[in-house]
């Protein structure tokens, strides 16, 4: 059975005109300790002397107490006698006081002007980095025919499985719900005009041209883009990227190209799949709320969509896939070598990918309008 620790104590007595403070018990930083103000009470001594003869054990909590006492004595003009304390205790107390008054404070924080300058320089470096990365990717693609035999097809297939097949459940769920929501919103309005059947046109066209590629891209940005950034960021933190460069392997050829190819191939397929599931969602609402037979819905959908619409969706999807891959890999390669750096890279990869997807979608809208398709 262990003996409970004797609590820290500081008892005072007056002797020969000076206040004697007898320190005793076990002083532990995780336990409560006496406060100097409570120990002193209303006493106004001219001199205070500390005795450590009854001390069982002590740590930094006693140093805190002594620091508090000596600081108060200095302020109140009381003579504080620490000479009877063990030498080691006094040395540590001196060290403590010195640590609170460091001679030269290394302030590495920047003022506003420096911060703005650094942010500008950082933005410029970042932009150069993006161009450099895209350039490297283009060169890597150009090198691809020559070194197709050395291309890591195994990695590429793994990535295709990861970003394609493994994404099917979440893509199915989201696309079905989006199709369902679209159909429901359209049904409420169209029913007032007796134009119920046009729900199929609205759902079909908007899914194939817009919502299918967009929803698949947003899902993959959050799922695959983030995973690319985290994986490559961790590899950078572990110096695996440096190791690749040292043995003469381009990280772009080794890591980026298989991922870009996987996403570029899988995104159109996922989008076509998302289109089918979205239309199915619309069909469920049409059948359930508007009592439109599935066959009529399907015929109307077929009449409203042509191959051009499907092509528009597939072109968008391929572009979105490449943008997601580029964002994830770029942010991973730019990650700082720390856990927080990898976290920031992951967030940045998702944000960058979604931003680029929306911008690209807007540009495509203008382009396709101008082309009349």
């Amino acid at each position: 059975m262990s003996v409970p620790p004797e609590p820290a104590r500081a008892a005072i007595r007056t002797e020969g005109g000076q206040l004697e403070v007898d320190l005793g018990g076990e002083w532990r930083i995780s336990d409560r300790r006496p406060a100097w103000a409570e120990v002193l009470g209303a006493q106004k001594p001219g001199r205070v002397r500390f005795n450590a003869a009854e001390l069982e054990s002590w740590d930094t909590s006693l140093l805190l107490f002594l620091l508090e006492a000596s600081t108060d004595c200095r302020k109140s003009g009381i003579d504080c006698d620490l000479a009877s304390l063990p030498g080691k205790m006094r040395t540590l107390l001196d060290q403590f006081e010195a640590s609170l008054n460091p001679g030269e404070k290394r302030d590495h924080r920047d003022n506003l002007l420096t911060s703005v300058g650094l942010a500008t320089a950082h933005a410029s470096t970042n932009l150069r980095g993006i161009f450099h990365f895209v350039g490297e990717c283009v060169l890597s693609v150009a090198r691809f025919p020559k070194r197709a035999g050395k291309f890591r097809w195994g990695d590429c297939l793994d990535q295709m499985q990861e970003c394609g097949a493994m994404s099917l459940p979440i893509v199915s769920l989201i696309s079905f719900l989006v199709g369902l929501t679209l159909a429901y919103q359209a049904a409420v309005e169209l029913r007032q005009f007796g134009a119920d059947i046009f729900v199929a046109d609205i759902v079909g066209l908007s899914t194939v041209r817009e919502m299918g590629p967009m929803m698949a891209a947003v899902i993959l940005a959050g799922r695959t883009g983030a995973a690319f950034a985290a994986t490559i960021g961790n590899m950078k933190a572990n110096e695996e990227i440096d190791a690749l460069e040292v043995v003469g392997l381009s990280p772009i050829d080794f890591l980026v190209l298989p991922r870009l190819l996987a996403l570029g191939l899988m995104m159109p397929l996922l989008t076509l799949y998302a289109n089918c599931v979205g239309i199915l969602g619309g069909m469920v609402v049409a059948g359930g709320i508007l009592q439109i037979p599935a066959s009529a819905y399907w015929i109307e959908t077929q009449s409203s969509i042509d191959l051009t619409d499907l092509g528009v969706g597939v072109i968008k999807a391929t572009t979105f896939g490449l943008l997601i891959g580029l964002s994830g890999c770029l942010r991973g390669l730019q990650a700082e070598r720390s856990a927080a750096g990898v976290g920031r890279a992951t967030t940045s990869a998702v944000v960058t990918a979604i931003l680029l997807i929306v911008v690209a979608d807007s540009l495509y809208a203008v382009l396709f309008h101008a082309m009349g398709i």
Partner: protein
Amino acid sequence: MADDKTDIIPAKATPGPAIEVDGLECGYDGEDILKGVTFQVARGESFFIIGGSGCGKSTLLRNMVGLNQPRQGTVRFLGQPFSGADIASRRAQLRNFGMLFQSGALWSSLTLRQNVALPLEEHTSLTRAEIGQVADLKLAQVGLAGFEDYYPSDISGGMNKRAGLARALALDPAIVFFDEPWAGLDPITSRRLDALIRQIRENFGTTLVIVSHELDSIFGLADRVIMLDREARGIIAEGDPRKLAESSTDERVREFLHRGTGEPAHSTKQS
């Protein structure tokens, strides 16, 4: 003159070892790494766990401090059971020891001061100002005064390790564990770390348990060592490293402590 007993802190002059390990068995994924490991560490002792790569030094340390669960056996700190104890009891005992990880393992999103302050915030009732003061003291003790507001990514690997040591010492623990503290440090920084470790022990009477194969530091700092062996899956030697180097009849021990040169490493260092 002050009473001598107050020079020994915070280890109390109570009897009993600081650490008791009895019949410890540990491993990963069905594979045994160590079996039947039994030893004791006295209070205030500088104790090294040594051995070649892959012999289970770090595994033993992780099982001792509760990062991994031993398959069998018990670990007791300051007379209290630790392995197998309930969560509240283990949490209370965590205040008794600190650990310096191989990489420093500082929390990268916190400044050095915040890194040292976090255990104090969790385990003490000190005011925010006092916690800041103690954190600054601990950083000053490891030679990092002035770097309190720096983030781990702003400083070198050696400084990271020293800051990790300051964090390990935040609660004035009775026992400090070190996992390969000299790994990745240059010789000068290594010797400075030796001096720091020596100072901690002199100042606080702290029990030190160090996993290492750094022979200069083993001969310079260790009171006692246990040597683990991969094939034996346990302890093959125990005692003063200097005596083991001189008189051990076990070829594996002699080879390790002689750096494979045939001469004791501590004597070649001195010559």
